[in-house]
Every structure is written in C-alpha cells, then in structure tokens.
C-alpha cells in the first residue's frame, strides 16, 4: 500500500526537514519559471531620496512638529500620521544642522518614517513581533533553568 509507505516514511521525524526543504526547493524553482512578476507602480510609503538634505537617506520632509504627508493605506485611521515622521530629538536636530548624514541614525532615535510605520500605522505588526520575541525568550529561559 502506497499510503502506508508514505505514512511510514513520515513517521520518522528525521525525514521531515529534508522533505520540507525539498518542497521549498521545488517551490522556488517553479517561482523562477513563473517570472516575471509585474511590479506595481502604486506602492505604499514610496522611498524618496534627496541627496542635498543633511538627513540624506531618511529625509523627514519638514521641521519637527509639522505634519508631513505620507502615503499610508488608510489616512482616515491615523489622523496624526506624519508627526512622528518629522520628529527629531533636540540633539539629533543639532547634529543634522552641524553635520551631513549624522543626524539620521534610524533605529536608536525616536522619530522618522520607519518609526512611523512600525509604531503607528502598522503598529499591530510590531506588537506581534515583540510577543514572538517574548515567547521565544520564555521558552529559552524555561529550558535553561530546567536543566
């Protein structure tokens, strides 16, 4: 019986990983054959680069505490979207006036378009992400303490 043999093969958990990896391999092969993918021109949050700005790769589009327009999916749901984008802490404001590029370290400083997306408009993603990290940490520390 073919079903019994398949079931017997799957019964050994050592075989699952190679099987899944093989399936993924064929999936990506099929993906190559199904190219090209039509890239949509109307993207959310498009990237604009202003080389002359002192905040070069992450120019905020305006001084702090002004609401800049950003291309989010549902503008009605986030009435204050754009305020976080333009926000700069006093120190980084000073840094951006004195130096070129230095004022825009994106992850450490509060403010900027990435923070706007991560905290505000797509905040639920970040909540789930933090929860996953929390769960993984709980697993690791429980197993660590157990032994």
């Amino acid at each position, binding site marked *: 019986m073919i079903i019994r043999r398949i079931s017997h093969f799957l019964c050994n958990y050592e075989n699952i990983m190679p099987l899944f990896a093989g399936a993924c391999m064929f999936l990506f092969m099929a993906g190559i054959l199904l190219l090209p993918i039509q890239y949509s021109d109307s993207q959310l949050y498009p990237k604009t680069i202003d080389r002359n700005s002192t905040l070069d790769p992450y120019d905020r589009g305006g001084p702090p505490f002004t609401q800049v327009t950003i291309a989010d999916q549902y503008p009605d749901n986030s009435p204050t979207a754009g305020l976080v984008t333009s926000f700069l802490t006093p120190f980084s404001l000073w840094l951006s006036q004195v130096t070129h590029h230095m004022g825009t370290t994106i992850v450490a400083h509060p403010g900027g378009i990435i923070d706007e997306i991560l905290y505000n408009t797509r905040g639920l993603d970040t909540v789930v992400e933090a929860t996953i990290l929390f769960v993984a940490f709980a*697993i690791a520390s429980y197993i660590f303490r157990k032994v």
Partner: protein
Amino acid sequence: MWGHYNYGIFIVMIAAVIAFLALARERDDLHKLLLIDLIEILSLGIIALLGTDLAEALILPGLTVGIAELLALSQIYCTKEGIRSNPIMGLDIEVIKKADAPMILSIFLVVYGMILSGFTGGAVAGLGLVVLFISRSYREDLNLLEMASGISWALWIFAFFIFMFLPGFWFVALMGAAIGILLKVTVKMSLVGTMWGEQHG
C-alpha cells in the same frame, strides 16, 4: 517587462534553490540550524526588493522573528545534546569574570541614552539607571531578563493602544515605544553578559 525587480527576484530565487538543496541534503542537526540561519537572509532579500520605506519597516519584524526562533531552538539543541557548560574562551577582563557584565553594559546604555538626546534622553537614561540598580542583585538566573523583556513588551502594547485610540497623545506613545526598544536592547546585551559570566562563576 523584466525590470530591476525581476532581475533581483531571479537572483534571490536561484540562491534559495541552492540553499534549500543544501538543507535537504544536510544530516547533522547543528549544521541544519546554521544553514537555516543563512536561508533566513533570503526572505529578507525578497522583502528588501520591494524598495520602499515599507520594505525597511517589514524587514525588522522579519529579522526579529528569525532571531527569536533561533534563540529558542539553540537552547533546545543544547538540552537535547546534553550540553550543560560549554567552555569557550571569554574576554580576560576582571569585571566580566565577576559576572558584572550586565552592570557595565547598563552603564554604557545610560551614557548612550544621555548622549542620544536632550529631554527625551532623560527618560531613556533614567530607565537605564533602573536596569543598573536591578542588575546589582543579579545572580545567574534569567528571571530578571525575563522580567525586563516582559516590561518592554507591556510598554510596547501600551504605546500601541495610545497610537490607535488616543492619536492626539502620539508623543507619549513614541516615547513609550522608544523606551521599549531600549529595554529590549538592554535585555539582549545583558544576555551576552550572562553567557560570558557563566563559565567563571
């Protein structure tokens, strides 16, 4: 028809085929884990090919999920193989020998928090001080780190609800989330501290 996007996708997909082929043929458990860590990069590559600000914001959750699962899995691997103390050559510095590395790193974070920004940095640095005081009574268990991870999680949820339901107070929410990320970074760094401290203690 074949824009830059498709050339990029083509290359990433070829890399994915090669990587998954290697994974399918690998038999050693540890090597499988290492290979999967490499394969994770390919998913980040496909996200990055979007080329918008959204892509950059999606990479961060993707990266974190991969790292989180890797953390849990490597701990399971250690238990499964019965590895209890793994002698590695640590840094030969006296403070780390005394398992005080979390404290040193906290001081570093406090200083960094103060340099980072003016009045907002006050909150950040103050929080770093709290971490410093808690870690003084820290004795080789992960309870404290778990608690800090829990606090950062709660802060983030709190900030999220302010953003969603009281958008007028966006500034409070931004600061809450910023402190949340600082705590998360602190937790990860003090974890490095425990790993070093373990062998000498």
